[in-house]
């Protein structure tokens, strides 16, 4: 029969049309909100989603997975009296691995001896050149540079981040990437323990 295929296709769109109401009504009956709530957004991007699929940004936001990456930032640990203990040792691995070469690091030298000390004096990231690949964070041996979740950086001028702009506390890191943070902390702890054990061993050896 001519026109059967069209009717079949129309059946699909017809079903899709009703689906836009079914979930809405079901959620209404259950007294839950399908829109403008985290639960609703989660449901809409799950495998069971049907009906209205779009997310009303910026009122609603997709929930970013932990691994989401956007522009790196530098982590500092909060020391006593709010002192910023920058984790970066200016080893330069991130600057070397960066594919578009958008990282500039100025290594600091001890004014007395002239030897390099493990802390950067200045750190630049040209955010407009950065391609968000995440290599810097991936290969940093000190977990000092981490990919951020903040993607709303539109501005009227060029975004060049210096150290002041880049530094964010470790607590922020924990808040956006709890699993990674926990893993890193465990690794650091294990490393320190191993170091202590080794030192103790060495002490024992010398004592013996």
């Amino acid at each position, binding site marked *: 029969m*001519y*026109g*059967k*295929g*069209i009717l*079949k*296709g129309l*059946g*699909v*769109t017809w079903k*899709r049309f009703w689906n836009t109401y079914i979930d809405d009504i079901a959620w209404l009956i259950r007294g839950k909100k399908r829109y403008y709530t985290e639960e609703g957004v989660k449901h809409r*991007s799950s*495998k069971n*989603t049907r009906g209205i*699929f779009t997310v009303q940004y910026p009122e609603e936001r997709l929930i*970013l*997975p932990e*691994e*989401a*990456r956007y522009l790196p930032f530098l982590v500092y640990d909060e020391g006593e009296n709010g002192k910023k203990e920058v984790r970066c040792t*200016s080893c*330069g*691995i991130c*600057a*070397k*691995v*960066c*594919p578009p*070469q958008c*990282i*500039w*690091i*100025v*290594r600091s030298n001890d004014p007395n001896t002239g030897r*390099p000390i493990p802390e950067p004096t*200045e*750190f*630049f990231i*040209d955010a407009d*050149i950065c*391609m*968000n*690949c*995440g*290599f810097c964070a*991936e*290969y940093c041996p000190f977990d000092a540079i981490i*990919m951020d979740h903040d993607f709303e950086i539109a501005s009227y001028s*060029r975004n*060049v981040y210096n150290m002041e702009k880049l530094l964010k506390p470790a607590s922020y890191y924990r808040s956006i990437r709890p699993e990674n943070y926990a893993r890193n902390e465990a690794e650091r702890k294990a490393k320190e323990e191993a170091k202590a054990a080794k030192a103790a061993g060495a002490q024992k050896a010398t004592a013996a």
Partner: protein
Amino acid sequence: MMTTPASTTTIDLVQRFPGSVSADTRPGYSGFIVEKDKLVEVATAIRDEFGFDLLTAVTGVDYLPENKMEVVYHAYKTTGGPGLCFKVQVPREDPVEVPSLIHIYPGVDLQEREAWDLLGIKFTGHPDLRRILMWEGFEGHPLRKDWKEAFYEEDAKPFKSRWPDGKFYMAEDNTPLKDNLNFPQNFDPEKWIPEDDQMLYQSLKRYTVKNEEGLETDRIVVNMGPQHPSTHGVFRAAITLDGETIVGLKPVVGYLHRNHDKIGERNTFLQNMPFTDRLDYFNSMSNNFGYAIAVEKLMNIPVAERADYIRVIMAELSRIQNHLVFIGMLLNDLGAMYTPALYAFEERELILDIFEAVSGARMMCNYLRFGGVVRDIPEDVMQKIKDMVFERLPAKTDEMDRLLSENEVLVSRLKGVKVLDAETAIKYSVTGPVLRAAGVPYDLRRADPYSVYDRFDFDVAVRQNGDMYDNYAIRLDEIRQSLRILEQAVKGIPQGPINSQKPQYQVRVPAGEAYGRIESPKGELAFYVVSNGKPNPWRYHVRPASFVNITALEEMCIGTKIADFVALLGMLDIVMGELDR
């Protein structure tokens, strides 16, 4: 599957042409070196006697220290099996001349033009040797090793100005009009009249006809694009028309050209990985896959088994979303605005959610590393992949099928409109679904298995007519086959490490060459990488599926109506990020 050991052909070819063919004995290299004068004869024999009917890649390499240029050809059999690599070496003196193979393998057309454009290798006998990616009037050949681009800093990354004394500067402070542009001598932009259009129309001139009264009539030339909603980006086709019928067509590309190859040669091996994402930006996982395979071949390292499965899962998921969006966009091109496209995009979004959760980015995934992948799939994401593969995607594929496949309007629009027949498709080096829709069951996952594809049970989707309807339907077939692969991969994924190597930001790659190829959703995607033992590749060449596939565009369109051009171009499923590189 045919498996001819490469060694047998080796002996044959040298014996067949004693004195003019020799095996390439440089360490890390393989294949043969053919004398320049005998190239056409040898290539004819390779096609007709040895049966290598599909010439996939033509690559020019500039060996500056040895003062020679090399053209590398990779030929394969459409019946499967390993390929044949033959090379021509010519001294690096002006002009560098190599005989064109266009009369034996017409598929080399655009690739030879590319080698001429970027490396200045003159292919004698090529009927239309114009620049293709750079603009006419451009001075120099940018892929030559002694050519330096604007903003040139150093020969290789990492640049010295970054660390330890980072002297920060903004790129635009090297003022565009001083350093960014390199004008030829005595050049005045105010007085310049571009030649490229004239040359382009010259190449379309052959369609001028004499009518009965002896009057010469020019055909009408219509420019589709570069700004045309149907061309999927900035693609331009100069079409010669006789009434409504297309009698000639020249694709004009390069509007998005960024010299990916040159960037790649400046980068270290690892740094290229995120750049490959930007090729076919719909399938960054597949692009990573191809590049990783090429470099792993060169490094001669194994891939962790679990990582291989993860790679297959990601590549097949990206194939599914690519094909779904292809169908949606095809319907857009045909005038069924947005309904199928948005249905397709819904599934694509869910698949991109998976990519984002494992790799951190939806489109620019940068997920693969040499020897494995960057991180394991978390448990909840694995569950989501299972849900998608076993429940949602099969249902949604069927829904798409129900929505469109029998629709009489669509069927009468698509059925019987020819795209390519098998012979022409092979002649023009077309690969991917377009080739398979023409009845050639050539799928690299079967023909030359890579990764762990030989462990999975699936059929090579193939259709016989090579018309538009088959080209549409084969995409649905392929989605179903991909789902079959995914089901097995998700079930059979072993536990274990995800990388056979230690994470390292500077990999050691021994000297040599490697040609890594995969079946990307759009066709054969291949990377030809040459290393000289340094941290940067000496040559990094991408053989994109879209670029080679449009070689056949003229052949496809001649004789059809101009209204079909949009649909025919849609059939090739081009992506400009990959085409223009």
